[in-house]
């Protein structure tokens, strides 16, 4: 009887262990997939800014989206989209991005490099950003973004 109970317990343990493996792998894959998706959206956002594609940028931003520009200006979604059209940005590159998941919300930190022309003069800006993304109704939307120049 003892042997039988021990065998059942051992089998149960093996089944539970095996059952948990794919789940764990799936969880990791899921987080990894989310990160890949978010990084792809970040790149799409940079690309849209670079080519002044307001229609491509619009669906990435939540209606209540707020942005703090590198000079401290606070902008709504409408202001950001209007600014994209008139911006003198020629190239936007993001690097060293990391994504931290908090349930249906992802905080992305990274560095951006932006090249452009202003008042007939070329500029190169380098800064750090935090973007916050939220999964809403089947879509990932940016709800917040801020840029800070790197001074050193």
């Amino acid at each position, binding site marked *: 009887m003892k042997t039988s109970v021990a065998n059942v317990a051992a089998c149960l343990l093996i089944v539970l262990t095996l059952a948990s493996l794919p789940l764990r792998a799936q969880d990791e894959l899921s987080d990894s997939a989310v990160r890949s998706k978010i990084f792809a959206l970040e790149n799409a956002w940079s690309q849209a800014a670079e080519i002044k594609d307001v229609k491509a940028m619009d669906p990435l931003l939540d209606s209540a989206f707020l942005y*703090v520009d590198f000079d401290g200006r606070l902008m709504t979604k409408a202001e950001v989209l209007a600014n994209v059209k008139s911006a003198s940005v020629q190239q936007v590159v993001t690097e060293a991005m990391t994504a931290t998941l908090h349930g249906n*919300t992802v905080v992305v930190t990274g560095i951006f490099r932006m090249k452009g022309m202003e008042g007939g003069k070329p500029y190169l800006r380098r800064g750090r950003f935090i973007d*916050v993304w939220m999964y809403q109704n089947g879509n990932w939307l940016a*709800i917040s973004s801020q840029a*800070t120049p790197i001074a050193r």
Partner: protein
Amino acid sequence: MRTKEGVEMGKLFSVLLLLLIAPRANAQGVIPAQTDESRILTLELAWNQAVQEKDAKAVEILIAPEMVYIEYDGTVMNRAEYLASVAARSVHAEQILSEAMTVHLYGAVAVVNGVYRETGAKAGKPYLHRERFTDTWVRRDGSWLCVASQSTLIVR
């Protein structure tokens, strides 16, 4: 920026903060329910106060272990680095004021935008900083914790 020095007030402030962030009972109206928005604004003010007093323990209660902080000069810090910077400030801030704060609630996530106005002295010289910040808070086990904070100098 919230990494300034002030007068040490002891541990009382930390205890009060713990009470502040603890999940509130809302049963039978025994304890008046504070809205998430007003609660978060209160936490923001408590954070300023704690920084001004160099009370890293009080700040620690407010921020998540995975919190990321970006200083107005672009320096990025994790929680441990940020707390160390709070405790070891060489700048003397006389006053830190938050103004024009807005809270956007997204269920268990809140985004706060606002402006810091800070006056003080650095290397014997007075300074005035105005910075715009974004703080992202997440509700976890009934308590709000900041998971991301960033400041940018307002230059115009």
